[in-house]
């Protein structure tokens, strides 16, 4: 599914998943049952902003303060992929 997620949703990492820094590979990784996802720097920043309080719109706004080029649907698709895996939950306002 590549529909992205609505900008008013508040994403939060699911309880079964967690993000850790891997000193061996020198990058953040997401760990979940039978799954490892290597994150690039932006991916790690997005996951860390998914705290259940910020909306998707808030997250995109924060990313825009840090990075020059933030493509809204790319962020939404990234979150949607994690939702599909059930590693991320979407909460309503």
């Amino acid at each position, binding site marked *: 599914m590549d529909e992205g997620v609505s900008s008013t949703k508040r994403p939060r990492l699911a309880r079964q998943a967690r993000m850790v820094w891997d000193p*061996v590979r020198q990058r953040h990784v997401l760990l979940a049952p039978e799954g490892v996802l290597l994150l690039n720097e932006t991916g790690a920043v997005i996951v860390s902003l998914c705290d259940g309080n910020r909306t998707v719109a808030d997250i995109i706004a924060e990313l825009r303060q840090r990075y020059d080029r933030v493509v809204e649907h790319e962020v939404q698709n990234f979150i949607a992929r994690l939702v599909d895996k059930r590693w991320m939950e979407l909460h309503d306002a």
Partner: protein
Amino acid sequence: MLRPFGMLAELTYRCPLHCPYCSNPLNLEDYHDELTTAEWQRVFAEARELGVLQLHLSGGEPLLRRDLVELVASAHELGMYTNLITSAIGLTPRRAEQLRAAGLDHVQISIQADEAVLSDQIAGLPAFAQKLAAARLVKSLGWPLTLNVVLHRYNLDRLDRILELAESLEADRIELANTQYYGWAWRNRAALLPSKAQIERAEAIVRAAQERLAGRMEIIYVIPDYYSQYPKPCMGGWGRSQLTVIPNGDVLPCPAAHILPLPRVSVREYPLSWIWAESPLFQRFRGTDWMPEPCRSCPRRTIDFGGCRCQAFLFTGDPARTDPICHLSPDHWMVEEIVRRANDDRDGQGEQARPVPRVFVRLPRQRQATTPIGGLRGLPNKEGK
């Protein structure tokens, strides 16, 4: 260098169950000399340095290790995602709470069937009620729950009810894995292999359930490779992303590889990093250079890596041949022969093979002659008893 992501730590081969499809070795009594707590902790630390992020604690029954909580705590402190693969026998509320506090991330419980009679016959132990209680306990403690179901001739027709059970237990994941024929399962393959009709019905049920439960429960279906055209990409390739450490400290590219006529290598003698990167065992089938035809020139050689070395060995006596599962393998007729026999109408033939239960191994300290248990007198024959 490719770094491993996952390590399977088979802490012990002792197990209270007697499942006839167990992939543990037939000579279970040769593995009494288990690594100590300190040895395992050192192996975990070496594994983390090597890049391992997922630690699967299995066996045998890992709960039979009295130091399990300690081992989980060590792995957790190293930053690994810890995964307990258990029969659930011995997962008491107290033990579960200790494991939760030690940082255990995920629990996988084996289920043999959807109801007690068949389940207990397959397991060789009245375990069904304990398994359900343990599954509920896992959920109540907030763990993600996976149910592991090994599929074979005797439970494949109950798949819809097995899925209903998983749903009622609110499992987050269910792994429906057709039996992989190694160890005890290889010995029992004539009895366990399902018919094509069974497989087709099961696959339709799986597809429907995957659609119906999307977003609620993840359903992983491991195909029965005897019925597929191409072999499975065993372990994602030899020495490529996974490794296994067995109870006595031997390290293997896959949990079945102890059967192969290759030099063994142990964490008691070498550092894990050397074993992974340089040992002859891990180099032997890494990459594609070792491949014979038809693999060598096949466009799928980096998809399935020539299939499974253990399967090639079990069928042909040579682990360097193409996995006979592949329809392009010159040895494929051997698989076809077994499949043909499994699809003969065996009713009324009176020749149906009976599965032999995995033989129980006593605790090392009380060492005695291994005791075969009552047997699968229990598994239903055509009268259903």
